């Protein structure tokens, strides 16, 4: 407690005069086809994108990309026959080959998809621990910029964890050579529904 008082007192005596807080406008993208830009940026960052006309095709797309009968964990109710969330113990999900989750907002300018712990069945580690990740997003939920995304998100009320995911896990720590698949998912497949 003592340090808190010391730090705050030091700030009070050392801080500069009040500097005004700017109102930041909601910058929008000049690109008209946001979906196209979203796909382009995702692919540039090493993700795969698959567009479908009807949600009923999701299952088929998944089996096309992952034909082998691997351990797949999904938090989506529509994907019957797949493993759902049965325990909150995170270590249980080690060995998950593919995790399938829903993205709430897609950002065209950087290919990021927003997901909260509610879409993860409260298993926060799921999109990181799985070897491969599939995210499903509706084209209706693609916005242009991060400003629009945060405006749509508002303040968190029901979730204690949220993350923007913009591709497969990657590193360039060895001689600046890009390696896809560092500690998290080795690949990201984004399925865009209407």
């Amino acid at each position, binding site marked *: 407690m003592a340090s808190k008082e010391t730090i705050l007192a030091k700030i009070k005596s050392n801080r500069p005069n009040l500097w005004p807080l700017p109102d930041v406008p909601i910058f929008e993208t000049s690109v008209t086809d946001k979906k196209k830009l979203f796909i382009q940026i995702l692919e540039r960052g090493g993700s795969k994108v698959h567009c479908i006309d009807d949600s009923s095709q999701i299952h088929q797309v998944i089996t096309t990309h992952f034909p082998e009968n691997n351990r797949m964990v999904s938090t989506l109710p529509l994907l019957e026959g797949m493993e759902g969330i049965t325990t909150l113990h995170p270590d249980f999900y080690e060995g998950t080959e593919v995790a399938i989750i829903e993205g709430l907002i897609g950002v065209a*300018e950087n290919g990021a998809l927003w997901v909260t712990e509610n879409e993860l069945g409260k298993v926060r580690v799921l999109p990181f*621990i799985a070897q491969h990740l599939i995210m499903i997003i509706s084209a209706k939920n693609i916005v242009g910029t991060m400003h629009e995304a945060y405006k749509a998100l508002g303040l968190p009320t029901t979730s204690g964890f949220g993350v923007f995911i913009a591709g497969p896990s990657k590193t360039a720590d060895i001689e600046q050579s890009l390696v896809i698949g*560092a500690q998290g998912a080795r690949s990201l497949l984004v399925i865009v529904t209407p």
Partner: protein
Amino acid sequence: MMPHAQKAAIFNKDEARTDWHDASLWMVRKKRDFAVSEIPEWEFLREFASDIKMHTLSKLDDYLESFEKAAIQNGAIVHWAADAKEHNDIVLSILNKHQAKKMVKSKSMLTEECHLNEFLEHHNIEVIDSDLGERIIQMLNEPPSHIVLPAIHLKKEEIGELFHRELHTEKGATDPQYLTEAARHHLREKFHTAQVALTGVNFGIAETGEIVVCTNEGNADMGVHLTPVQIHSMGIEKLIPRRSDLAVFTRLLARSATGQPVTVFTSHHRNPKPAGEMHIILVDNGRTEQLGKPDFRSSLKCIRCGACMNTCPIYRRSGGHSYETTIPGPIGSILTPGIDLKKHGQLPFASTLCGSCTDVCPVKIDIHTQLYKWRQIVSEAGLPEGGNKTMMSIMGSGLASPSFFHRLGNIGRKLLRLFPGKERFLSFTVWTKDRDLPKAPVESFREWYVKQTKDGQ
């Protein structure tokens, strides 16, 4: 401590390696330029980011209290640390409370600054740095040489040899894909067996009490979500007022750092996971001192992107280790003299004052102006000793008196004619160490001008 210039000279002995280091960083700078060119409002964003940070600093005490209140309401435990020692003691007490002996850590320059690893190891805690670059240098027992690219100074052959020794990879294997895969397996096991995870913090949000961590590898999230106890160490200057301010900063950070449009993961942690525990440590460690220095307080706006390092001609050709500070390069050279002027007073001179750092800084810190201002302070304090001072006083009196200047010019030209090539007689200054002086002209402009006016009449 060896001065920067001396360390840089050692670094420069291997010319091919220096060129390679230079080129690697310049490539990152070019990627940044491309990423920036995609945002038409880039300059506005820099201005907004700068103003948001300055505003936060001007009300930092209020915002810290709002942040703490919100974080506690969320269910986090908030600690305050006046200095590195208190920070380290808090971390150790959390570990002891849970009888934890193993901790995974994701990249955090603050814990480097506090020398947390050495402290915990001394108390028999196993600390595993989980970012690939950090893990590499931890195995080598070296500090990071760059704040975003910690192992940028190492060749893949050296990493291959290290991994062969430590992780039993094949001898002679140097493929980055293969080596990264080996580290992935090695680290997965650590994530599952550690009891505590510690991360740094990119942004703390005053209105929500959230902390935001930006990574590419996913290592911070693997640690935080797999261990029961999560600790976030945060410098007090990392605060921003509103959640929506993240739009500005996430657009600036990765583009400036690596030229990516955004980091792969931007994680917002608000409360502990089910049955978990979440600690946030707010650390001062000299920041309030810096806040009290009007000329230098804006250095606290820094968001640690590393762009000033990638662009700096001195950093690129001297390497991060030559600075002997936690944060090397231009930003480190204005942050550290305030901590220990005697030890780090030479760093503001490790610059050409070209201003490229200021140009690329996403939060508009006037880095080169502050480097110049530190030089004044260092010189007034009587530091540094050596050749520069002698040269400066000769130049000073020479330029102040026209007749002396004239005579000095004459002598100089004569000497240049007598000893052409490497000007050994100037060896008391470092200027001629790697430079040849130009051929001496037959006459000076003044002599020529006098002749012209005479002939013309």
